[in-house]
């Protein structure tokens, strides 16, 4: 190893990181759990929103069905009433 390589070894000798580095790493290593918790919360919110949306659509479907049934009943009653009038006129 010549003088330049010796100088390079000295110039590139390992250096200590800033104080408190290991503690900051340990602290950060615990953070992913919170990140995971946020992901779980986000997933749960998505499930709730999707479920809510489906329930709301189902509810709207039921209301629409009831409205159609009511309209059918009214139409049926009207038809019966007209049929009665027609029979009276014929007699």
């Amino acid at each position, binding site marked *: 190893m010549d*003088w330049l390589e010796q100088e*390079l070894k000295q*110039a*590139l000798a390992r*250096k*200590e990181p800033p104080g408190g580095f290991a503690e900051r790493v340990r602290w950060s290593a615990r953070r992913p759990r919170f990140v995971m918790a946020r992901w779980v919360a986000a997933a749960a919110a998505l499930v709730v929103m999707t479920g809510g949306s489906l329930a709301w659509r189902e509810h709207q479907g039921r209301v629409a069905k009831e409205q159609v049934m009511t309209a059918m009943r009214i139409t049926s009653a009207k038809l019966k009433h007209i049929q009665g009038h027609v029979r009276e006129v014929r007699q």
Partner: protein
Amino acid sequence: MTAVAIDGSRTARGLAAAGLDFDALVREHQSMVFSLAYHFLHDRQAAEEVAQEVFLALHRSRAEIESPMHAAFWLRKVAAQRSIDEARRRRRRPQVALDAAPEPAAGVAPGDPMLGDLLRRLIATLPEAPRMVMVMRYQEDLEPAEIAALLDMPVTTVKSHLKRSLALLRGKLERRGVGEQ
């Protein structure tokens, strides 16, 4: 955690199985990881951020670590990858050709602390691959074959980077009267 080895037997894996402790690994290897990033990026803050990312990646991959040697290899490899990624991503420091590097102060000679500073600045101007090879060689005292394994490049390429970078540095220094007296 267990894994099936090549011969079909089940082998224990992970930091705990290897008798390793994450905090102890951080304490043991923090200067190695930080220095690899620092000598490559020439920026203390960026080096600290990279070093922290490397250890967090180790924490996430702790189930894959099989032995203390594997941990050291893994940390060096990931530190090199993350440092190169960081240099590419941030482009904080414009790439300066060796010829455009700052002139050494007059009277700098081997053994002078100013020479060390000059060498670090000259290395910081090398292209990414030869720069990382030089840092691995002279910071970590690794052989070309070990550097080749870490950086996924042929041994001949590593030797070529070393030879060429040394010649460039030597020429740059000797033309300005810095050299063995």
